[in-house]
Structure formats: C-alpha cells, structure tokens
C-alpha cells in the first residue's frame, strides 16, 4: 500500500468513524446571569448577609463597618474591562473631588478628569460617607460639603464567587470539558462556585462532553458581567439599608 493510498483511506475512515459514532453534539444555551447565585466575599469573610437578587455578602468587620456608614454609592467600570485602577494610598491612581458650586463629584485619574457625577446633598453640612466600587476594591470616602478632594476612610477588597444554576447533573458524563472563556474549570468548581477577582473576568461557561446515554452535547451558560454588576449594585444599596436596620436595637 503506497503512502498515497493511505492518504486517501485515512480521511475516508475518519468520515466513516464520525458517521458510525453518536453524531453531532446537541447544543443548548441557557441564560445564566439572572439565576446565578453570587457571593461577594470581603477579606477572610465572616457574617453572611442575604440580599435581594440571590446575592450574598460575606462581610468581615471592616466591610460591615463600611456598608454601615456609607450613605451613597457608585460602581465604576473601565473600558476595556479587566483594568484595575488602584485606589490605595500613598499613590492612588483614582481620586474623588467634590465641587460644591456645580454640585459635581469628579472622578480623577492621575490628574485627568475621568467622569463626573451629579451630587446634590441638599442642606447637608456634615461630610458625606460615599462608597466607590471598582472591580475588587470597595472604598469609603468622606466627601466634605465644602468641596475639595475626598478623604479615603476605608478600603476593602472582595472576591466574587458565582454559582450557576446547573441545568443537568454532569457527574456521569464522559469527556467533560468545562471552560470559562479560555480558563479551564473543574466539575467541582462548576458545582460549588467559580471564583473570580472581578466580575468583568466572567464570560460564557461552556460545558461539553458526552451525556450518560452517549450523545455528545455542548451547553453554553450565558453570562453577562454587566447584568451581574447591576445585581451587585442593587445588593450594595440593600446591604447599606439592611445593616442599618440590623444594628438598630429595639
């Protein structure tokens, strides 16, 4: 048998093998952002606070204090995502400045104004405790009503854990390959929760393999980090309210 003949036969055998096998994978897509359970774990964690939208904050003492004091909050995302701007002293890249005349809060990135935010404190005289969220950083600033740069009071770091609402039990599937974007995940991570440093690291989770009856499948759990960020934003509002209620003694 010549090399040429082998070259013709091998692709033919491959085609036949494909036909004789289980055929094309069954594809299914599940929107996972609304139903996924999200845990935001601050520092070493501690007290669990259940919040609307299936969000749980696991607060250490510093984070509990931060949410207890904050009276207003905002989340800051960057484009392209995945870029962390340090808020920590001594050389923070991102700072806040309040302009009482224009009632504007300026977000400044290394001397350059990044964005502005309308902030009307009414008759308030006392400084406003303000929470700025940026990826894994949760910073509490004290904004003087007289204007000027806001003072960083507290800075906490969080990590995120996302638990998808799985549509199947994958334990008995064979040739299982699970990916979050390009990151490979284990089945245990998929079942117990996928850890990320920031929500913009999240992408669709693709589970591929052969199901127990022998049919190949590809399941895509669609994740939109903007939707999840919205849930975290709402949860922060709720956490501020809950903690105030929680500490309110009868």
């Amino acid at each position: 048998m010549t090399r040429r003949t082998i070259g013709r036969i091998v692709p033919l055998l491959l085609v036949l093998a494909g036909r004789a096998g289980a055929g094309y994978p069954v594809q299914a897509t599940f929107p996972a952002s609304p139903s996924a359970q999200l845990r935001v774990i601050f520092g070493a964690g501690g007290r669990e606070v259940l919040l609307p939208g299936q969000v749980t904050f696991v607060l250490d003492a510093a984070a509990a204090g931060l949410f207890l004091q904050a009276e207003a909050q905002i989340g800051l995302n960057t484009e392209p995502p995945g870029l962390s701007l340090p808020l920590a002293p001594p050389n923070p890249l991102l700072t806040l400045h309040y302009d009482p005349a224009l009632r504007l809060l300026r977000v400044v990135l290394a001397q350059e104004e990044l964005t502005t935010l309308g902030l009307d404190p009414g008759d308030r005289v006392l400084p406003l405790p303000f929470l700025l969220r940026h990826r894994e950083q949760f910073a509490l600033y004290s904004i003087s009503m007289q204007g000027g740069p806001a003072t960083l009071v507290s800075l906490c770091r969080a990590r995120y854990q996302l638990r998808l609402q799985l549509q199947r039990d994958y334990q008995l599937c064979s040739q299982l390959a699970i990916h979050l974007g390009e990151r490979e995940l284990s089945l245990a991570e998929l079942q117990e929760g996928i850890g990320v440093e920031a929500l913009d690291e999240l992408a669709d989770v693709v589970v591929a393999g052969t199901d127990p009856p022998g049919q190949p499948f590809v399941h895509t759990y669609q994740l939109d980090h903007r939707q999840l960020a919205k849930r975290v934003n709402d949860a922060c509002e709720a956490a501020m309210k809950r903690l105030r209620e929680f500490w309110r003694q009868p």
Partner: protein
Amino acid sequence: MRSRLVWCCLVVTGLAQGRDAADWVRDLGAPQNEVREAAERQLVSQGLAARQAVRSVLKDPDPEVRLRAQRIWQQVRWGLEPEPTQALLVLLADWRQGKSRGVPGFAETWGAQTLRAIPELRTEPDEAAQKLAGAIAQRICQRFKAVDIAAQLQAMPGEIPLASLASDSLTAEGYRTLVQVGNLLWQADAATALGLRAWRRWPEDRELRQPTLLAIRASGCAEAIWERLGKPVPERADFLLLAYLAEDTGTIPRFAELVAQGVPEGLAPDELTALADLLEQEDQLPAAKLLLERGDTAMLHYRLSRLLLCQDDPAGAAREWELALTKLADPGAIYTLASRLEQDGDSRAEIVWRKLLREDGKTDVYASNACFRLAAIHEARADYAVAADFYQRGLDCMEGAILMTVGGKSLTHEQAKERIAETIRTLRAQAATPP
C-alpha cells in the same frame, strides 16, 4: 494447508459469535429441530441481551416459535444475566411461600443491576412479588449511593423505567436516591415524576428539595407546575414546592402574590420561618409578615417583632416581643431563640439566656451553656469579674462533656475544662487591675 484450516475455523467462529439475538430468534422457526433447540439454548444463555428480541416474538403466529419464546421469556424477562436470574427466581419462590428474607444478600451480591428486575416483578399479579419488588428497590437505594447505582445502570443496555421502581414501601431516602439517579442518567421526566410524588409525601424532607428542583429545571416543566398548582391557597406540600420553585427561578414576587391570596393550614413553625426568610431576602416584607403571623411560637413572634421594627412600627414590635417571652416554655425553645438573638446582634439575647439559669445548683446542659454565653457577653463589655463568675458557674453546673474546638482542633473534656479555668484566672487578674 494447516494455517489455512486455522483461518477457516477463526472465520467460522467469528461468524457464530457475530450472530445477534435477532438471528437466534429467527432460528426458533427453523425446519431442523436441532437448530431450534440450539437457538433456544443460545437465547437463554444470552439473558439480558436477548430480552428485546424474544419479546418481539411472544405473539408469533407460529405456535412452536410462540411456545419456545414464552419459555425463554420466563428466563430473560427479568433483564438480568442468567446467574442473578436464577437467584431472583429462588428468592421469588421463597417470598411466595411467605419466607420474606434474603433480599439483603441478593442485593449485596448482585448490586444495582437487580433494579432491572423490578418492572417485571411489578407485572406479577401476586402481592408477594410486589412486596419483593419494593424490598429490592428499598435495599438497593439504602445500600448504594445514587452515583454508584446510576453508573451500574448506565453500563447496561437499554433504559430502565425509573418510575416503575417507586412503590409505597419506598422510604423518603429511597425516593431521594431514585430522583438523583434519574438526574445522573439525564432521565429528567422520570426524575421529575418521582420527585413530585415524593414531595407530596415528604414536603419537609430538605434533602429532596435540590434533586427535585434540578429535575424540574432539566425537564423544563416549572411553568406548567406553576399553572397547575398556583391556585389560591394550595395544599401545604404544593405551597412549599411553589415557594422553592420561585426561589429557584428567581420569581419570589410571584410567590409573594400567592401568599397574599392565602396561606394553607398545617405549615410547621420552622417552615413558616424558612419561607419568611425567602421573602425577606427579596424585600417582600408584607408577604413575610403574613406568614409570621400564622404561627404562635417564641421564634415567630420575635421574627415578627424585628420585621415590624424595620417597618417603623415600634409599638407592634414591642407587643410581639412581649408575646415571644410568654411562649418560652421549654429550654430548647429558649436556647434556640437566644442563639438567634445573638446571631442577629440583638442585645436582648442576654435576657433570654438568663431564663436558662438555674438556682437549685443542679447540673443542666442548657444552664451551663447559658452561663458560658453570658460570660462571653460580659467579657465583651469588659465586666471581667462578672464574666469570670459566669464561667465558673457554667463549669459547676456542666452536664456531660464539654465540646470545644480551638483553631479547628477539638479539645478533650479535661483540656476544655483547663482552658476555661485558665480564662477565669485571666479574667480575675484583669478585674483586679485598675483601669
């Protein structure tokens, strides 16, 4: 020449081995008696593999084929290999004679594959066969983990009708295992049917919740269940199912609407608490209040008092708190409430812990635990002398062994006692030191 003969033999053997059950079934109607006899022997020895083919000729027009097929069917119908089939037939004969034993050994020897015999046992008219079917299913579900059962069933040809494995003799644990097996084998509809059937009987079984909800998700029938059961004031089991289904699908407001239409009778206090938790988490406070108002335990009155406080009703909150205090009848309820208050950071925990103290000096596990908790509360307030007294009192009235872990490591009773004694010495020293 010799090598050619060997080749011929191999080819012939290969052909014989290549024959499947359908070929042997065709031979049941062969003109030569020897061929028909050989085919019957082959089909019996094939057992499970021959089942489908033999079943197809049970009503064959040829009377001989029909007769032989029916004879073979008695052996292969059970879906087992020949050896376990023989063991099953012996077992069945014993049960029919009233000797209801042998199932543990049978299940242990032949494992989860024995579940395959159950659908056929169910077709038997007698009660003994039905009971045997239930006993085998129960034993397998009790003895093996769902993943092991599913793996064994997966390795065998054909799909086993999971729904036929259920019976009245199956316990909650048995049903739970079968639902998990259904999920593992991706038989979502069967798993859903089993899960819902079990839910009706054991709605309080928390471990049944997750596998049933997964089965419902996989079968895509959540909406159909809502439409069927989501009528005003459903039964208790349906009400609980809809609550957890709403949580699973992120539609708690829908459940809140159902609560507003009416709450069924018979919900246990801990169920009312759990449902109120679900609603409170999603800020559905009016519905949570409706549920908490349905109970009359210390915990429910306390929870209602917290909720009323959040709704700026301090008078209502105080009233509910007073009611909670009147319901503290047994030490267990007092202990649970005090723990919850402490968990909630509520300063009234101290009042409740004090209700567990005893003045008669007798040993009491609740009293000693209350002493230790009160000691910790006073230590946090820098009342070191009082804290030391409570620790000592806790040691004095301790009943049984002290369970204590430090840094994730369990201490023995003596080590724990010594550690508390050391804490008392430290606290007394701190109390003696001027501020």
